[in-house]
């Protein structure tokens, strides 16, 4: 009923090409932003901020980056953890070595480092496809693990190889409180999401998708695979790198290479596939799913156990958590192989026609 676009006539191509052509969507997004920026900070507790919202926002940003590469350009990558690490350590080095380096600049420079690193390890994609590429990108992962453990310079010669930052400031304001950190991450996420959306609905996005869908045809209409793939790697790893910087600076505060282990890479790939390949919104769904679900399970299971009158031990809980998590992933893939975003759009279609069945 209320979700209709009839009567909304486009009189210009500009109007037709905006991100949310349907008015209701625009309103919904506006409300959502208000909610995220203004309402959530009022409601959320310190725990929600520090343990769930902030990591969710950062991981969502990383997932967005992965989605550019995997979802839009069709290059499966398992090197995301490495790109995060490079972003984090890159930003760290700029931050501690150049006095007075502002946080945001450091993060961006970290992103640039990740970008270069990503393009380097993206080169194989010019020759290798699909799962071969996925495994090949693991090389980036293990190489960065090694690099940050072995090369002292990157960790500012700390004996243990772990690094830490503190007294962060953004535009002169201290970045200490949970809420301020939340706002910072949220703003970056929203901004990046907007930029990515612009890219994927523009010429470069069409090049990526063309390469993904039918690379030969793409080449024949004059798209250079080299440029398309490397640009995808560049944009993707830049975003992932920034996410890595945030993960280190804002979420952990002090970290070691293991904080960006290969598991992180797998989880990120999970997110974009569960969430929906080639969908900005899907990245967020996926991130929510992977970040929140295990924690939720971990806390709900004892609770559920309580109903049935027994308090499961930590061991039982953590094993059950693993099993349920695995089962749910399979279940979701079976129900909707194209990810949560697809469910979402189906729902929208139904809403359009509701209450009439097509």
């Amino acid at each position, binding site marked *: 009923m209320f979700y209709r676009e009839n009567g909304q006539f486009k009189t210009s191509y500009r109007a037709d090409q905006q991100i949310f052509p349907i008015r209701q969507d625009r309103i919904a*997004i506006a409300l*959502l932003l208000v*909610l*995220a920026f203004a309402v*959530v900070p009022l409601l959320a*507790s*310190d*725990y*929600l901020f*520090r*343990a*769930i*919202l902030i*990591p*969710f926002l950062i991981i*969502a940003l990383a997932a967005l980056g992965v989605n550019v590469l995997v979802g839009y350009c069709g290059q499966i990558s398992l090197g995301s953890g490495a790109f995060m690490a490079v972003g984090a350590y890159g930003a760290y080095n700029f931050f*501690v070595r150049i006095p007075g380096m502002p946080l945001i600049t450091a993060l961006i420079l970290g992103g640039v480092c990740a970008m270069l690193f990503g393009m380097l390890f993206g080169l194989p994609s010019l020759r290798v496809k699909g799962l071969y590429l996925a495994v090949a990108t693991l090389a980036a992962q293990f190489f960065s693990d*090694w690099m940050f*453990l*072995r090369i002292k310079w990157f960790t*500012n010669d700390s*004996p*243990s*190889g*772990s690094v*830490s930052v*503190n*007294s962060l400031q953004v535009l002169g304001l201290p970045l*200490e409180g949970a809420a301020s950190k939340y706002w910072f991450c949220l703003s970056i996420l929203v901004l990046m999401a907007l930029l990515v959306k612009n890219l994927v609905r523009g010429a470069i996005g069409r090049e990526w998708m063309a390469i993904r869908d039918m690379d030969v045809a793409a080449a024949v209409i004059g798209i250079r695979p080299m440029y398309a793939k490397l640009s995808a790697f560049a944009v993707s790893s830049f975003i992932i790198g920034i996410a890595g910087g945030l993960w280190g600076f804002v979420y*952990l*505060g*002090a*970290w*070691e*290479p*293991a*904080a960006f282990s290969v*598991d992180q890479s797998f989880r990120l790939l999970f997110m974009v596939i569960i969430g929906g390949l080639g969908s900005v*919104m899907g990245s*967020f*769904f996926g*991130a*929510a799913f992977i970040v*929140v*679900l*295990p*924690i*939720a399970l*971990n*806390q*709900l299971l*004892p*609770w559920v156990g309580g109903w049935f009158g027994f308090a499961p*031990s*930590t*061991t039982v*809980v*953590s094993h059950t*958590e693993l099993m349920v998590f695995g089962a749910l992933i399979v279940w979701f893939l079976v129900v909707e192989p194209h990810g949560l975003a697809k469910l*979402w759009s189906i729902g929208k279609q139904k809403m359009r026609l509701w209450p009439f069945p097509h």
Partner: protein
Amino acid sequence: MKPRSLVLAALALLSATTLTTSAWAQAKEQFFPLLSYRTGPYAPNGVPWANGKQDYIKLINARDGGINGVKLSFEECETGYATDRGVECYERLKSRPGVTLIDPQATGITFALTEKVTADKIPLITLGYGLSVAQDGMAFKWNFPLMGSYWTGADILIQHIGKKEGGLDKLKGKKIALVYHDSPFGKEPIPLLQERARMHGFELQMIPVTAPGVEQKAAWLQVRQSRPDFVLLWGWGVMNATALKEAQATGYPRDKMYGVWWAGAEPDVKDVGEGAKGYNALALNTSGQQPKVVQDILKHVHDKGQGTGPREEVGSVLYTRGLIIQMLSVEAVRRAQERFGKGKVMTGEQVRWGLENLALDQKRLDALGFSGVMRPLATSCADHMGSTWARVHTWDGAKWNFSSDFIEADEQILKPMVRAGADKYLADKKMTRRTPADCQS
């Protein structure tokens, strides 16, 4: 649902659960958040450790009815040895009423929490692990690497080897290989060993093993090639057992191998059995069920069916270490109560003072039933370690036997290094040392 509103739904759910869970711990109880890992690659070592801590809490409640009447409560949170899950656990439990202190049980999580505890005013105790430089209490107000750090451990090992050779000067021209877990944990001792190598003129060969350490053939081929006089084993979890097996397979004499105290427990040698015969490792504590405290636990906890783990594992090396950690925590609360009011629930800050003013002489240890389990220990504002003594024990194929008496790490070497490290830390952080006045707070 839009993504964030989706999350919010989940969050609402979570907050509900967190509320229900926190209902267990009334503010009248001294709450101990227990970060543990009972699953994943390091579970075999993490489990007895966690069990020890839990059983001691249960003992105090069952036997003494708490600390001066203040009941102890706890909640365990599974980190799986992963940093982000550890942080989540910390954030989940830190705001519970009566929260006492945190023992993360993992070096990686320790790093991530070092920044946070300062802001949240919760002491962070890392018995025998964590940041070596954190011994300097004037720089690290909230960190307590009690009873030893990787630096003291490495130092004691070198001293012990020197003794066996008949004097540290005999180490000249010798070759010592460090086979280490390729992570901050494994790399921490390197600076001290390099210092010692410079002093005594032995050659230090460093052989990293990629975590978790299931594949060490290359490492031990290198050992076989360079034939070092001694091998220091800086491993954790599966790495230790694998190292011993590879040593056996490449014919390196086990009695020339010396492990840190994280490479000297039953899970490390259990299924190597005979193959590990003669292997030495540092010991912060005894093992076995003779000590009075262990007997008490069997009597008051396990016989009541309240035991956390299997009865036969009670008193194992890491279990006993768990006991000590928890005992020190409890004693810190007790000490704090002496100053801030008996029978009250202590805040993190008050507990911190207690940790800083621990004084456990032999008499006290005997009273606690820890006679022979550990050496006396006394912390101070400047020294957050309290004791730098440790022993070496040797595996005879069935159990651990002590093969040296207590050795103290060398002040002369450690002090300047700790001081320098702490100063660098403060400089990087643009912070200043605590004033003596601050010690009174």
